[in-house]
Every structure is written in C-alpha cells, then in structure tokens.
C-alpha cells in the first residue's frame, strides 16, 4: 500500500513537471527586460521555498522525536533536512547562473544570498555531524537538538536580511505584496512549486524507507555478531 502511494505521488509529480516544463519553455513568452533567462525563476524560487520550509517541518519532527524517542520521527526529520539541503544547493546554483547573466557576476554578498549560503552551511554541518555518529539513538538525539538550534537560527538570520541593504530583486509574488509578475507567469510558478514539493515529498519518503532498511540491517548485523 505504502509503495503504491509512493508510485502514485511520483507519477503525479512527473506529470505535473512535464506539463510545467511545456508551459515554461514553450507557452510563456520571454520577459520584456530579461529575455529568456528569466525562466530560471520557475526553478529558483520554488526550490528556495522548499529548502526554507524543509528545516521547519524537520524541526517539528525533531521535537516529536525528543518527546517520544521514536526513531521514525528522526528518520523523517533527517530525510527532510537532506532533501532541503539538496534543494538549497540547486537554489544557489540556479541563482548564480542567473546572476552571471543579469548582474554580470556569479556571486554578490547580498544578505539574501548570504543567508541562503548560511543555511546551506548550517545544514551541511548537520549532515556532517550525523555522518560522524555511529550509534543510532545518539545520532537521533544529538541531531534533533542541533536541528532545533539551526531552525531557530534560520529565522534570526533571515530577519537580519531586512536590516541590511539588499541587491536581490524584491518580492514578486502577490502573497508578499509583490505584484510584479504577469498572472500567467505567477500561476506557472505556483504550479512548479507544487511539482517540486511533490518531488521533494517523494524523495523524503524514499529516503525514510532507505534509512529504516539501513537500521534494520544494522540491527541484524549486531544480532549476528552477538551470536
């Protein structure tokens, strides 16, 4: 049953992605100032949303783990961090490509870029720490605490953005009073957010299953060793 849900979700995500790519590349016109490169926003922004949402969702699961000490919550939290870290990497990479063409530079120490980079480093540290702990329960406990600290810090880092001069384009979506995007384009962006969110959910579920199998094998190995 779980497998069927996974396949169904993956199929919906794939179909939606194909539809979106057709919309983005073949249906929507070029933007009047930026030309074709503006299309990167359809990947850059949804991916950024997910990489920012992931740690907070994971933080909830970390708290659940600490209150109940059930390993499945740890698997959920860590899989979410892994996936959002990869999405953050995609966000940074696509942003750099866009910046190279529009700003003429790969990188600038704009606060928004800096805070995304900080987030990337924070959770990179989280993943490194997880990799260095062998004991499953100790790993779960320590990484849950680290995740809570990092998630709280993300808020503080993100807030400090608004207090520094910023070069990054302002909000374009209507939910943040941006209103700077044509309706058709904004719709494509939200649809692509949905597609990427589904994709992220599928990868998280696959990773959770992988980790659960991993832990099962580890337990069997220990049992065999004890015999």
């Amino acid at each position, binding site marked *: 049953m779980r497998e069927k849900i996974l396949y169904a979700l993956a199929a919906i995500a794939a179909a939606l992605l194909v539809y979106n790519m057709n919309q983005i590349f073949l249906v929507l016109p070029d933007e009047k100032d930026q030309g074709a490169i503006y299309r990167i926003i359809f990947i850059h922004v949804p991916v950024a949303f997910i990489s920012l949402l992931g740690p907070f969702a994971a933080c909830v699961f970390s708290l659940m783990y*600490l209150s109940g000490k059930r390993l499945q919550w740890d698997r959920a939290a860590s899989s979410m961090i892994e996936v959002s870290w990869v999405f953050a990497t995609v966000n940074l990479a696509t942003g750099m490509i866009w910046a190279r063409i529009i700003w003429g530079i790969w990188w600038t120490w704009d606060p928004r870029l800096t805070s995304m980079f900080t987030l990337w*480093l924070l959770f990179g*540290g989280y993943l490194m*720490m997880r990799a*260095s702990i062998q004991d499953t329960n100790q790993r779960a*406990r320590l990484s849950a*605490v*680290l995740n*809570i600290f990092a998630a709280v810090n993300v808020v503080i880092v993100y807030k400090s953005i608004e*207090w520094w001069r910023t070069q990054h384009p302002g909000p374009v979506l209507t939910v943040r009073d941006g209103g700077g995007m044509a309706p058709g384009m904004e719709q494509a962006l939200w649809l692509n957010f949905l597609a990427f969110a589904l994709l992220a959910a599928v990868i998280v579920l696959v990773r959770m299953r992988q980790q659960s199998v991993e832990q099962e094998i580890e337990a069997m190995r220990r049992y065999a060793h004890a015999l």
Partner: protein
Amino acid sequence: MRFLRQSWSVAAKDLRSEIRTKEALNASLSFSLVILLLFSFAFDPAAEQIRDFSGGLLWMVFAFAAALILNRSFARELENDCLDMLLASPVPPAALFLGKVSANFVLLMAVELIALPVFGIFYNVNWGMQAASLVLVTALGTWALAVIGTMFSALTVNLRLRELMLPVLVYPMMIPALMASIQLTTDLIAGQPLAGDSFLWLRVLVAFNVIFTALSVVFVDTVLLG
C-alpha cells in the same frame, strides 16, 4: 538560589583548574596574536580604510581564539570519566552548563581585553573613545560565543571528530551575533555613539543571547543525559 550556587561551584572549579595550568588561556592568547600578525600581511595595515573593517578583524580574532578554549570545555572532563561523575552528582545539567558558560565567558573576556589594546596599538585604531560601550558590546558578543560554543562543545563531546566538528557547527550558528558585534564594534571604533541604527544591532545581539541561552538551558539535559 541553590541552582546559582551549583553553577558557581562548577564555574569556580573550571576557572581554578584553568588558572593553575593556563593551557587553554596561553594557547588562545598566543593564537590571537599570531592572527593579528597574519592580518598585517593580508592587507596594508597602514591604510586609512582600516577603521571600516576593524570590527570584523577583531571579531575574527576573537572567534578563532575562542574555538581553542571552547573545544576543551567539555573535552577536558573526559579524562578519568570526570563528565560521568559530574552528571552523577546532584548538580543538574543546566547548572553544570551555566557554570561552564560563565567560566568560558570569563576566560574569553580575559583574552579579548588583552587582544583589544594590542590590536589598537598594532593597527593604530583608537578604541578608547567609547571604552564603556565597547566593553558592553564585547561582553554581549562574548556571551553569545560562550553559550553557543559551550552548548556545541557538549553536543560534540562524545564524537570521534570532536575538534573538527565544533568550528564547522559553531561559526555558521554564530553568524547573526557576529554580524551584530562586528557592526557595533566598527561603529564604536569610528566614533559613532550607540544610537539609531546601532540600537537595532544591539537588540539583535541581546535577542540572540536570550533565545539561545534559554534554548541551551532547556536542551542541555537531552544532550548530556539522553
């Protein structure tokens, strides 16, 4: 009251053993002098713009030197199973943690209050104009460094890669506090009083300290005892 007394006895123990050996203190102090020297090769130390990034340089020295002290905070309790004894004693982990934070805070402040005038002499920066405000900002930034550093020292104490993991985890966590401290220190050295925009950064620093001190006190039980 009892809680404070317990914290105090842990802090006093840490300070006493540090003052007797002076291991971390000497290492941290000489390391900060080495970085101060290295900075003079990285850019023209006689340049006029030095004031614009003096706050940043100073806090980089503080942050790097702090890693040496913080690394040992919990690791030194591993010998002879001292950590297990401390945890088995009637001192609650939160009191143990606050005691260690206070001891680290005192040690870091000692290193910084020596490094600050040395920095002023070598780089011809006049830090004496607003000494009181500068000490306040330094104390707030150092408390942030001590809280995060001690918490992560506890978090990594049983890890194989302890010495490697601590800086990787601590510096990204410290970014908001370091940003605020750097901004404030640069302003103060340039002769601007603590007012207007500076208050915003002061608030960031205070909020950072309050939030993470509270979080650490809550979660240190989980980290040390499980």
